[in-house]
């Protein structure tokens, strides 16, 4: 488990954050540009020394300003994938990878061959850094960080410098790192869709402070997230398990109820994360009949939240909440209020799942 509680004053900016991350899986530091995410990971990596505070990883104290402990970055065993890759230009791809491998201390759990096959680096090995595309550079940077056999892997907006197409090309590799390796990872991003696809735990930051933290399901309902991502991106995130394919749709079992989403072609039993965007949801106060919509989740309204020029209706569907955005006129005419029975309706074509392997082998 990673625990961070640090303060750092820079020229015109002060950072004061405290959070804990689970010992496995990918956690996200999410917030707008300039909110202190990079400074925070630099503190974790040891590249920035905090003015005051504590950083511990498992049983190891990395920073404790009161006891005067500040383990040098090179002895922390923390891998770092930088936004700008930072590959060594005087070395080939293979030598960049071996640079990390040669200096790895402790147990080796990722071999060169494994890293190369996991990230498809085989064809790139003999190349020089300037002969790589942006996406390839990031893949090599990930491989290099992995081969240093880190106890924790930090990824600071590794996709930020890439265009949309390249991002889509690299994202699957990040997913496979997350699913195939037992290394805990911290992913920094200001793109919510990346966080949604990759992270299980999320720390929300704004102007140098943590405003919320928790599992992604809970955070997806959090009010402070709404202001960060904008009205169109708001929506509950639910985890489910694939039951199978039916009539060209993938059936997903939720904690309560079932969803049909756009076909994914993944095996039954796969863990799936689905975001139900509030703007895609329809609220009915009667059981729906004769509608083309494929998903109807029965529940009870728990809150009607005033959100700018519309309302967000929170419906408890039994162990989970979903959010629907409705006009104020609809709230009034239907008499939407807490305690009222309601059905949340959403078209299958609006729903896309992201497959996930939930962390099973925790590591200190």
């Amino acid at each position: 488990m990673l625990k961070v509680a640090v303060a750092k004053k820079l020229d015109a900016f002060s950072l004061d954050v405290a959070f804990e991350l689970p010992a496995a899986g990918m956690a996200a530091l999410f917030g707008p540009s300039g909110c202190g995410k990079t400074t925070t990971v630099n503190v974790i990596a040891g590249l920035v020394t905090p003015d005051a505070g504590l950083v511990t990883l498992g049983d190891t104290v990395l920073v404790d300003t009161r006891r005067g402990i500040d383990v040098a970055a090179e002895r922390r065993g923390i891998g770092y994938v930088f936004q700008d890759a930072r590959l060594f230009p005087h070395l080939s791809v293979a030598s960049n990878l071996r640079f990390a491998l040669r200096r790895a201390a402790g147990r080796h759990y990722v071999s060169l061959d494994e890293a190369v096959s996991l990230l498809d680096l085989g064809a790139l090995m003999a190349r020089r850094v300037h002969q790589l595309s942006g996406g390839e550079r990031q893949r090599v940077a990930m491989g290099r960080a992995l081969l240093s056999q880190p106890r924790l892997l930090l990824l600071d907006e590794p996709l930020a410098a890439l265009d949309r197409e390249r991002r889509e090309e690299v994202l699957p590799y990040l997913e496979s790192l997350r699913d195939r390796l037992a290394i805990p990872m911290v992913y920094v991003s200001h793109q919510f869709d990346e966080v949604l696809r990759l992270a299980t735990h999320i720390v929300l930051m704004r102007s140098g402070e943590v405003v919320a933290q928790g599992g992604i399901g809970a955070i997806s309902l959090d009010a402070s997230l709404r202001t960060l991502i904008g009205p169109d991106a708001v929506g509950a995130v639910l985890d489910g398990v694939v039951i199978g394919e039916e009539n060209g749709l993938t059936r997903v079992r939720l904690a309560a109820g079932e969803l049909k989403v756009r076909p994914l072609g993944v095996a039954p039993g796969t863990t799936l994360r689905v975001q139900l965007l509030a703007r895609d949801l329809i609220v009915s106060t009667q059981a729906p009949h004769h509608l083309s919509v494929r998903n109807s989740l029965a529940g009870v309204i728990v809150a009607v939240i005033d959100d700018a020029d519309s309302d967000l209706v929170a419906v408890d569907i039994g162990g989970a909440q979903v959010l629907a955005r409705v006009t104020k006129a609809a709230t009034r005419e239907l008499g939407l209020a807490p305690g009222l029975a309601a059905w949340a309706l959403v078209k299958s074509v609006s729903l896309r799942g992201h497959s996930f392997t939930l962390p099973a082998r925790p590591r200190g």
Partner: protein
Amino acid sequence: MNPSIWLSAGEREALLLSLSVASRSVAFNLVPAIMAAWVLTRRRFIGRSLLDAAVHLPLVLPPVAVGYVLLLLFGTRGVIGSRLERWFGIELIFTRNGAALAAAVMSFPLMVRTIRISLENIDRRLEEAARTLGAGPIDRFAAVTLPLMLPGILAGAITSFSAALGEFGAVITFVSNIPGETRTLPLALYSALQEPDGEMAAARLAVLSVALGLSGLLISEWFARRVRRMLGR
């Protein structure tokens, strides 16, 4: 007395001697210049501007003054010179090693400057990356900083080699003008001009000096281009 365009035996000797003196001078300077460039670029300490000034001093002093100071320090009765001779049997005065020392001192600032520019252009974030991969300070310097400095070091070596070939004032003051031992190209050129019929010899030596200087600069430029291409800049 030698109307040919070919070099006489004495001139060939001066050429070889110059090359030998300049190589020694570069060898003396290389490590101290890398260290000075690194300290001046990377360290902030009291007396830094003083060190900076000391390094650049030979650029602004009359070379004869530098030669004179060397004579005081490294002469047979000098503070350093007397001990070098007593303890190690090293004689600098009137020797080619002395000539190399004089040329080294004079060309030191050139080498430091060139190396420093290359060091300032190194992206320090690469060293940060090396840290996160487990490389300590010496390892980082040897495996990342030094190889990235290499183009600058080579350019500095070539420039200071060329400058050492042409050093006159400090050499003649410190080690005199002894044929076969300290008479380098510029000294031979000067001596030729002192001869009543030495004009042809002087011309040959001048052409030779230009050719050497020019090839130094061309080699340095060619090399820099090659390295830039390798690093994809």
